[in-house]
């Protein structure tokens, strides 16, 4: 089992005719994802370079292909509109890769998506992958290890991109498979957050442990710590990036900022440790920490 996406997930790419959309659609297809089409307004009726049907609207794409998930490579100014379109067309899981979406656009789009009951991953994220079944996003597929008979499987939730790959790779190298890896993105207002995903992993019988990678900014990790203490029975390993980040500076991600004394790595680490969660001090020892909690 897995969460969010699996071998039966039918994916469309919004922005399939753009450079990034086309490239990553190829990568996802090669990984084995069931990409069934795409949309680009004004280009309906043509075929993409992958031979997939292109539609003008999400509604047509869903009606024609039966898609239930969407991967968005839409330029930031139009991203919120594309999200709402996907939600209105009946897409169940939307994955917004785009970086630089205005915060208030996300605030507004979230209200709309929540009303429709749609699950959003991102924005400003690598996407979601259920190894061996479905990859929706820009992560390198081969670093992941699909679950097999007898493997210990880890669910990974992360606010970062390449740091997620780092964690995945450490798991894979130690022989741990991944049930699903979700990059929730580095923006202050986003879709699925730690708590929703912790709940999904807790309920997924084939996830045996959870790795949670946070970073400075906001209080999501503190809330997740309290949630884990009360609701999660599976072992959790956490890592928090930005222990050396200065306050008041945005560290690459729009949401990675310590402001008004809130959002420090120290506060997050303390909250996690207090909740009895194993915190890896170094980004290089996530796999090692996992081995300890699983032994």
């Amino acid at each position, binding site marked *: 089992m897995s969460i969010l996406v699996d071998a039966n997930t039918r994916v469309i790419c919004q922005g399939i005719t753009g450079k990034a959309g086309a490239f*990553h659609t190829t*990568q996802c297809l090669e990984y084995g994802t069931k990409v069934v089409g795409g949309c680009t307004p004004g280009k309906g009726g043509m075929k993409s370079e992958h031979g997939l049907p292109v539609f003008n609207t999400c509604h047509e794409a869903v009606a024609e292909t039966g898609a239930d998930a969407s991967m968005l490579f839409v330029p*930031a*100014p139009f991203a919120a509109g594309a999200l709402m379109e996907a939600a209105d067309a009946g897409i169940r899981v939307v994955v917004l890769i785009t970086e630089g979406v*205005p*915060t*208030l*656009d*996300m*605030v*507004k789009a*979230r*209200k709309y998506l929540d009303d429709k009951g749609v699950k959003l991953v991102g924005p400003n994220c690598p996407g979601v992958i259920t190894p061996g079944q479905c990859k929706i996003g*820009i*992560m*390198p597929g*081969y*670093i992941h290890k699909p679950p097999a008979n007898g493997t210990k499987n880890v669910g990974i939730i*992360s*606010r*970062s*991109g*390449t*740091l*997620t*790959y*780092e964690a995945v*790779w450490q798991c894979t190298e130690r022989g741990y498979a991944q049930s699903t890896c979700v990059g929730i993105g*580095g923006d*202050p*207002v986003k879709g699925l957050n730690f708590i929703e995903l912790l709940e999904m992993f807790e309920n997924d019988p084939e996830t045996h442990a959870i790795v949670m*990678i946070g*970073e400075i900014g*906001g*209080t*999501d990790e503190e*809330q997740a710590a309290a949630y884990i203490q009360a609701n999660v029975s599976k072992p959790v390993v956490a*890592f928090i*990036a*930005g*222990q*050396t*980040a*200065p306050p008041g*500076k*945005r*560290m*690459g*991600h*729009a*949401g*990675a900022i310590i402001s*008004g*004394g809130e959002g420090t*790595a120290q506060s997050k680490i303390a909250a996690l440790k207090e909740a009895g969660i194993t915190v890896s*001090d*170094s*980004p*290089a*020892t996530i796999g090692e920490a996992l081995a300890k909690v699983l032994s």
Partner: protein
Amino acid sequence: MKVHEYQARGLMEEAGIPVPPSEVLDSADQALAAYDRLGEKTVVVKAQVHAGGRGKAGYVKLVSSAQEAAEHAQRMFAEPMVSKQTGPEGIQVRKILMAGAVDIAKEYYLGIVVDRVRRVPVMMASAEGGVEIEEVAARDPDAIKKAWFHPHLGLQRFQANVLAAAIGLSGDKAKAAVGIMLKMAKLFLAKDCSLAEINPLIETPTGEILAIDAKFNFDDNATFRHPDVQALFDPHEEDAAELRAKEFDLSYIALDGNIGCLVNGAGLAMSTMDIIKLHGGEPANFLDVGGSVTTEGAVEAFKIILADEKVKAVLVNIFGGIAKCDVIAGALITAAKEVGFKVPVVVRLEGTNVEIARQMLKDANLPQLKPAGDLTDAAKQVCACV
């Protein structure tokens, strides 16, 4: 993006929020005429810089003659302001705000931010104005009253009424404060603010409600649709190296240490700084070259890192995903040749095509390039170099 106080005043005036009359100076010789135009005996002279600590540094002064105003303006323009937030070299003052001093009966606080937990904007009001709101929050969280508002509907009048009453305002004063709150919320949504703050909002002895000082920050991701906000950008307030990095789509932040970092991805870049510190070193910078590393980007990144004279060694930490390690190794070799490495550069590559990349680095035979096994090894090596 931050703007100056005088620019925030301009935005408030446009929005119809009452602010006392003020004058903006570009040079000290404008001070005499500005004082006369204000027509008040007591005038406040304030240097316009983003850094805090102006009062303690002597860059906010109450004066009671045109001559005195001119003298302070002269000094502020001539000597860079040094405060806790500026660093020892200080910051050059380029604008000065002069405003008539206002009699204050009471100070309040109004502010709007996006609440990251509830994912909606929140209006905050407090009867304890004139001090940092963080201080109030730490001392007495109940002194800050909050109203979360719907992003599509905006702050509703009833919500503002509740807030005004909660901070002890009634009658005409409450009505005035409610008007200000509604205009502020509208401005926040219309201009994609990330912070809108009036501190203090004051009540005069005659019962007038005025905005005395304000701070507005804007969402960098949304300035593309606000040319009027873009026009308020002051490049003098930015670090030159950070601005230059931005031109090349690099995210760079200078720090105090001596180990330069070049990393792909923001989270990995932050944790690379952390692992350096963990092994006893001090990072000189945060630098995210982005998910796909180009030769041009790598060359520019090295130029920026090595321009910092404190840097005694560099750690390159790349997890090649879609960006393949061999391409990155090629970029590193080109950068080494173009920029000329005078300090050791420890390289840790992992991911797609890493074996080819390691061979390439070996074949390039660049004495300053030191390959590392894993991330811990890389951090130890680079810390040993300084």
